[in-house]
């Protein structure tokens, strides 16, 4: 047992904040080291000239994960965060001008499909059932435990458990997401809409394993939510909880090195050269770069030996303050490419920009007027691009791609006067994202979920060879997307707690005090 019982967390992204809250709730002393001047990682906010933009994720699904984190501390999420349901969940625009709304309510969805593509009604129901089943399987075997591959899955259960074998046979290991969708859904537009559920994890539906269809049911069963104050309210709520639980935050404190002795983590060295002894480290930094840049040596070699991880996609984000609103838009909108295969092939196979890209648009002003001055809009546009390649010079590319995006929006979503409506403009290119967030090759979503067998697996949240190292974030199990990242922080913290890393007498004493206070 080490003498210093503090747990260090590298990075205050949603995964790091989640781990910090869970550990503190269980009685650990926690310090969070953040390289940037703000806390919350990509869940940052841009507030200027009367406009407010969430800079990173905008769609919150599966809020039960957040509730669970607050429940660890015996707190009620609703005292920290007000969530409002969004319906329709998405509005979809197609190249041929047709429009389809995605509803959470099954009755409303049926009515919508009856108008749009009545032939798909039965198929849609079959797909929904398959998605529910894959979600249930995920719950049993992938979620809430530290898993790095199929072997861990079997160790978590018992290999001879018949129900496990039955589940394995139902995982559709031979199918991709795109195939699973198209087996049930014949209408190409409805299929394209469902394809984009895996865009939450920045991966190609044509390469991602069918188990990821679970996202469909995760969204359908719990809905899509808007936190009052925007996505930014989520890290704010977690930071508040963490502070109440005694977590200490160190901003502007990049970590250069994780120190080890033998096969145990002993602490970290900051960029100022200060050595901070720690009982364990939860790295919320990109996992591949954590091994490569913070650890190195035999641990990095072992990590790289196991498997080569491919970055997920990157993207261009535009933050536009508009003098007008577009009434045809809902809160969340997808303006789809003319051909998903062509698009995914460019981004994920060839590593080039899609000529006719899918654009995601967020226009929150109708839900939350505080994001913009009256009758104005804080428009957020995200277009997926390949992760950074050496020849991508975004200074050169960006102006041309901006034009491509605007033309697409004019053509498919009827936003003809967009250029003239702009009174405020900021943007991030993959190069900016790479610099700003310290991610792998500018990837927004950590590691790609590609490969029918391995695609569902990310690096586990613990390292079997290095005691005291835990991973959280989109580049660790169970993967990217807000609920998954929050879950990854919970798993990392829970695994640390299970591993009895810290002298438990100290923990027991603190817990006892808290119980006594509570009673």
């Amino acid at each position: 047992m080490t003498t210093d019982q503090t747990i260090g967390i590298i990075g205050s992204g949603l995964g790091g904040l989640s781990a910090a809250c869970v550990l503190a709730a269980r009685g650990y002393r926690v310090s969070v080291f953040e390289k940037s001047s703000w806390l919350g990682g990509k869940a940052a906010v841009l507030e200027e000239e009367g406009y407010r933009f969430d800079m990173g994720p905008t769609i919150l699904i599966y809020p039960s994960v957040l509730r669970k984190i607050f429940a660890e501390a015996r707190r009620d999420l609703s005292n920290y965060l007000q969530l409002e349901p969004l319906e329709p969940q998405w509005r979809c625009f197609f190249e041929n001008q047709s429009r389809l709304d995605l509803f959470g309510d099954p009755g409303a969805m049926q009515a919508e499909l009856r108008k749009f593509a009545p032939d798909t009604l039965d198929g849609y129901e079959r797909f929904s059932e398959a998605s529910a089943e894959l979600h249930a399987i995920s719950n049993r075997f992938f979620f809430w435990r530290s898993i790095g591959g199929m072997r861990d899955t079997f160790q978590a259960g018992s290999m001879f458990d018949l129900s496990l074998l039955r589940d394995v046979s139902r995982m559709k290991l031979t199918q991709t997401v795109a195939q699973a969708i198209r087996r049930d859904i014949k209408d190409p537009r409805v299929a394209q809409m469902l394809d984009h559920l895996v865009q939450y994890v920045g991966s190609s539906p044509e390469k991602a394993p069918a188990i990821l269809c679970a996202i469909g049911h995760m969204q359908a069963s719990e809905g899509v939510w808007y936190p009052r104050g925007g996505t930014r309210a989520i890290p704010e709520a977690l930071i508040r909880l963490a502070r109440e639980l005694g977590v200490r935050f160190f901003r502007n404190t990049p970590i250069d090195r994780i120190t080890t002795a033998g096969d145990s983590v002993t602490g970290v060295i900051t960029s100022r050269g200060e050595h901070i002894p720690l009982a364990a480290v939860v790295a919320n930094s990109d996992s591949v770069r954590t091994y490569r840049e913070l650890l190195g040596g035999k641990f990095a070699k072992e990590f790289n030996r196991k498997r080569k991880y491919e970055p997920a996609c990157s993207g261009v984000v535009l933050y536009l303050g508009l003098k007008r609103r577009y009434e045809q838009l809902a809160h969340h909108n997808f303006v789809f490419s003319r051909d998903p295969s062509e698009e995914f092939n460019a981004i994920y196979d060839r590593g080039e920009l899609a000529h006719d890209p899918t654009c995601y648009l967020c226009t929150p002003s109708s839900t939350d007027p505080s994001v913009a001055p009256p009758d104005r809009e804080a428009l957020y546009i995200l277009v997926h691009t390949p992760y950074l390649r050496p020849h991508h010079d975004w200074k050169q590319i960006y102006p041309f791609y901006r034009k491509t995006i605007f033309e697409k929006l004019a053509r498919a979503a009827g936003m003809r006067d967009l250029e003239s409506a702009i009174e405020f403009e900021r943007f991030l290119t993959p190069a900016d994202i790479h610099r700003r967030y310290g991610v792998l090759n500018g990837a927004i979503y950590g590691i790609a979920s590609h490969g029918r067998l391995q695609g569902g697996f990310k690096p586990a949240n613990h390292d079997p060879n290095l005691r005291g190292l835990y991973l959280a974030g989109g580049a660790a199990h169970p993967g990217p997307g807000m609920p998954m990242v929050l879950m990854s922080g919970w798993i990392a913290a829970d695994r640390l707690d299970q591993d009895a890393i810290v002298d438990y007498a100290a923990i027991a004493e603190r817990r006892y005090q808290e119980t006594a206070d509570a009673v």
Partner: protein
Amino acid sequence: MRNKALSRHVIIAGAGPGGLAAAALLSHAGLRVTILERRPYVGGRTSNFTAGGFRFDYGPTFFHYPQVLQSIFQSLGHDLWKEVDLIRLDPHYRLVFGGGGELVSTSNIRAMEAAVRKINPEDARHLSRFLLDNREKLRKFRPFLETSFDSWRDTIQPRLLSILPVLKPWRSLDSELSRYFSDPRVRLAFSFQSKYLGMSPFECPSLFTILSFLEYEYGIYHPVGGCGSLTAALNRICVQQGVVIHADEPVEEILVNGRKAVGVRTARGEYKADAVVINADFARAISRMVPNRARRRWQDHKLATKTLSCSAFMLYLGLRGTYDRVGHHTLYISKDYARNMDDIGHRHVLSDDPSFYVQNACVTDPSLAPPGKSTLYVLVPVTHQTRAIDWNRERPRYRELILDKLAAIGVTDIRSRIEYERIITPAAWDTEFNLHQGSVFGLAHTWSQMLHLRPRNRFEDLDSVYLVGGSTHPGSGLPVIFESARISSRLLLKDLGERVPWDERSPESVVAGVA
């Protein structure tokens, strides 16, 4: 079997389930066994009483994890399933939450998920993980439940240290369950079982999540005729094997020669013995049977510092008519359960909204009452005896309060139906049943009173004395009491240089055979 006259003689003080099981095991191994029982009948609290045609169990009414007793029966050449008519209950029980909501527990996992979903949809998703993790936990901990903890050295054996992360002594049952379930009601559904040990889920060690796991994995059974049928079956085997049983003859003193027990004294005389097994409430028995000066570790002033588990206020009701809509087992959980537990364990006062347990066994087993009538067994966990509560005064008030509260689980209009009634208060448990301070579950199962820190199976303060029952390792509850009989009998036989016949078959294979 060898000639008993030539065999060594063991005295067993107490004919509870632990004493009877030990008697059966030891006599089967070839020893001469005499049981001396204080009360006029065998079985201890695991026995029936009959009145007005109604039959009641005094104490335990849940029987789970029959694998332990079955394995003992098998090593005696018997089959539990033939000796006792066991009915597997499904659903297990119904939980009624004072704060609203109900949960019907079943070992059909899909149905259980659906039941949890009704209370909290998010928590239902974590049920499988809870069961998987606990299957692993039991697998790792089972060897320790099946061996003795003779000294602190036994606890630092590498095997036990290696499972510390599984045992997590620094966490309570409730906090461990927070890993799986957010809703306090769902956590209670998987933690109230700590009351089988007489403990609060907020203080009970996290290890005991295996208690609820055992129910889902192996089921809950009702022995036809009540749990007294289990001790009756053991008694039959003992008699067949030539065990001499003297009821109504309490052991007054353990006779010693130096540090070694050589026999016992009762009102009728002295008995010589090569070994003495105590199956009685530990604190009470030791302070009566062994003079304080002969004790080292368990002197009176040390006993006084031990944490005791709770007591119980009991109502045994014989009723005209039946409540067919109320299931076999029902638990009412106080609206403010934490407060209720605090009242019991720390504040030592009576709650106004107490949790309680009701057995309406006639829905499964009509043999317990005359036709058209039924029995109702009501157990209210309350503080062990303290000066603050005068049960002579509280008894009528608490009876009325409980009869009113029964409406919450669907037992309405009960007063007019009562044909027979018996009440046992903590004061009566203390005086009539000789339970120290009326504590029905003995020493609390905190980590400071478990494993080697619990009174050991081989009594520390005197040679040739062994303990069985809920007071010793592994602890209270029928399955572990039977396990204690097996552990202590093994030690006794080895100390006497005798064979341990049942170890000659691998215990793992026995358990696997019936699981």
